[in-house]
């Protein structure tokens, strides 16, 4: 039987549950169907509400907050259009396994299903894009749904959850504040026991002559950086990471070969071809990395993951272990032999020397790659970097190195343009003492540019770097390489004046277009704690290399030097 206490409203209870849970910041936007909740939020002294300019901004801020702090990110929206504006963010969080709790207002229960004003079946809409969702039908169910939702969001492979909260349930009185029994099974939130044969798994690794670790975002969610480093150093095993795994292993470590995949380093992709054993740690053999049937085809393939649905999904493996990555590695490391691998490590060092990341830096124009190298040096690699999606994202992934996890925020799975700016704001709220830089493009930044107002309103010192080539750069790159330079709708000549736009929000800005201006610009950009906009004009024809064309494998990688030889760089 539920414990009974004095009756309070559903909205009051929801706020108290958030407080008890330790949520101290929520990102949201009010509206009719969520007003009782906002009224209770108004009275809360523990929860700070960040008012955004668009609900998509709210959920990406919650994502940036969650990914940079490791905590649950919470966002609030009203019913109908407010709720549907969360859909992209929920999908983003599902694909990148980010723990998000979205609370949406809903029309009163007696109006549900009648096409009432601002009604949308957000429960139905979000079924495929949440880990858990519920339409709360009675205030007596709030406590249970809240507990189930938060446990599921953070448990196992993390993900987004949504609670749809009808207006009359918000005002309904309840005395049920705690639940004795959850309806969901504990397997959805408890750490699973290690599944699989550790000994044969370790034996296969010990037999390998040229092993490679392939680290994904799951390593960051499992907080397994320390163990990965221990494993790599003990066995002298080189490490490559996916876009989502960046930071799980220090980018400057001698054993790091950087990112692999479509725009990974040449040495990482060559390492995949040359290795005789590849161990996937919390990655999902994504299609930007692994072509089924051709990925590390000569190697023994092994996989450790918390999600059994990832095993043999796209690429079949020879050995697998199920469980929390940190726990599994702790159990595995003692069984792994301490080996020096001078030949293999030396071979990769030579590859790094002979196939470095390259670009043509001979002109006075600013090359984004060179600029990012300078930014990395000037910020001492200490910043939290968020990106949008496109060329700038890949350049940032290649040229800004990270020593730690949770410093790199990017939309990996869904590839959401408009993610970068709100994610940076969310990260800054979670990490007020750290430098937070949003790296964006002239296309991406305009997808959620209204959040400049949120920066101005809360005086958040987010640094916004915009690479401007008056093009959708990545679209242009594909059109140039695969569509005979038919630049269908990728060029735009009507960008706003980003510097003036910043000024309109009291954010200082600067535009540069010549290499000689870089040092001064970076000083201006990073000099104090205030927000800045730095617009860097770059050549439209600049491309991201190396590149593995979509659907091809590591064998088909195009390097910068290949294009120079072919006379078209």
């Amino acid at each position, binding site marked *: 039987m539920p414990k009974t206490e004095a009756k309070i409203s559903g909205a009051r209870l929801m706020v108290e549950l958030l407080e008890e849970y330790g949520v101290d910041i929520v990102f949201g936007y009010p509206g009719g169907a969520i007003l009782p909740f906002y009224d209770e939020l108004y009275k809360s002294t523990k929860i700070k509400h960040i008012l955004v300019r668009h609900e998509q901004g709210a959920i990406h801020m919650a994502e940036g907050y969650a990914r940079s702090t490791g905590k649950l990110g919470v966002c609030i929206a009203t019913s109908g259009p407010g709720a549907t504006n969360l859909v992209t963010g929920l999908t983003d969080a599902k694909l990148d396994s980010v723990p998000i709790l979205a609370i949406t207002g809903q029309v009163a229960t007696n109006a549900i299903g009648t096409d009432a004003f601002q009604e949308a079946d957000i429960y139905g809409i979000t*079924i495929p894009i949440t*880990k858990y969702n519920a339409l709360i039908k009675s205030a007596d169910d709030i406590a249970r749904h809240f507990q189930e939702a938060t446990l599921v969001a953070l448990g196992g492979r993390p993900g987004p959850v949504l609670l749809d909260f009808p207006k009359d349930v918000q005002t309904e009185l309840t005395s049920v504040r705690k639940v004795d029994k959850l*309806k969901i*099974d504990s397997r959805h939130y408890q750490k699973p026991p290690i599944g699989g044969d550790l000994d044969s798994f370790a034996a296969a690794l010990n037999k390998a002559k040229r092993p490679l670790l392939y680290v994904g975002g799951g390593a960051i969610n499992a907080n397994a950086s320390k163990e990965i480093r221990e494993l790599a150093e003990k066995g002298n095993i080189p490490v490559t990471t996916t876009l989502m795994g960046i930071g799980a292993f220090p980018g400057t470590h001698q054993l790091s070969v950087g990112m692999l995949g479509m725009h990974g380093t040449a040495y990482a992709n060559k390492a995949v071809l040359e290795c005789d054993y590849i161990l996937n740690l919390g990655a999902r053999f994504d299609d930007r990395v692994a072509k089924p049937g051709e990925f590390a085809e000569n190697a023994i393939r092994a996989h450790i993951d918390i*999600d059994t649905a990832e*095993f*043999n999904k796209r690429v079949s493996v020879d050995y697998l272990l199920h469980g929390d990555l940190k726990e599994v590695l702790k159990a595995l490391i003692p069984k792994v032999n301490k080996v020096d691998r001078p030949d293999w490590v030396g071979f990769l060092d030579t590859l790094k020397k002979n196939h470095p990341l390259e670009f043509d830096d001979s002109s006075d124009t600013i090359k984004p790659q060179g600029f990012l190298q300078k930014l990395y040096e000037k910020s001492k690699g200490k910043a939290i970097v968020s990106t949008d999606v496109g060329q700038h994202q890949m350049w940032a992934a290649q040229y800004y190195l990270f020593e730690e996890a949770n410093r790199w925020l990017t939309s990996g799975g869904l590839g959401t343009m408009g993610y970068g700016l709100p994610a940076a704001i969310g990260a800054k709220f979670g990490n007020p003492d750290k430098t937070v830089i949003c790296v964006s493009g002239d296309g991406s930044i305009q997808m959620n540019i209204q959040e400049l107002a949120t920066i101005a309103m809360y005086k958040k010192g987010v640094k916004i770097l915009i690479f401007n080539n008056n093009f959708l750069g990545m679209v242009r790159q594909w059109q140039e390489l695969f569509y005979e330079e038919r630049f269908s709708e990728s060029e735009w000549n009507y960008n706003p004046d980003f510097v003036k736009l910043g000024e309109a929000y009291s954010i200082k800005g600067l535009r540069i277009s010549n290499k000689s201006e870089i040092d001064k610009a970076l000083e201006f950009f990073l000099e104090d704690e205030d927000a800045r906009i730095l617009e860097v004009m770059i050549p439209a024809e600049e491309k991201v290399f190396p590149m593995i064309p979509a659907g091809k494998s590591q064998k088909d990688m195009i390097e910068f030097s290949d294009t120079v030889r072919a006379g078209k760089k």
Partner: protein
Amino acid sequence: MKHILKILVNNHPGVMSHVSGLFTRRSYNIDSIAVGVTQDPEISNMVIVVKGDDSVVEQVKRQLLKLPDVIDVEDLAYHDCISRELVLVVVKVEDSNRTEIISICEVFQAKIADLTKTTMTVEFSGNTRQVEHFMEMMQKYGIQEIARTGQIALKYRSN
């Protein structure tokens, strides 16, 4: 290859959408789906029949187990389960063939549920093969309407 998935789920609204949505996402055609409550009123039993290669069905099974409302999933092999399907068929009858149809129904142990001057509604239950066979026999008299439940299944306890 045909698979019979027996899925135990929490008995509340929306669960059906969650489950069937997983099949839709993989553009899987569900051959039949039947849902009924179990001895525990809080829990329902879903039986889904799908065609697909083993590895993909295995994927769907693992994805299903990730849904908080799914309690258990079992892939029943055809040979070790009892499966039944109920079908109601309306066939045209004439005076000349009425006794013939009735005697076929007797052979199949099908029940005549309704009879008019021109039609007969027959109720038949059996496994999919038997149902197909029975329908084939009825075909020649002219089937006017069909209602099928989809398969339900349980594992044999004897072995």
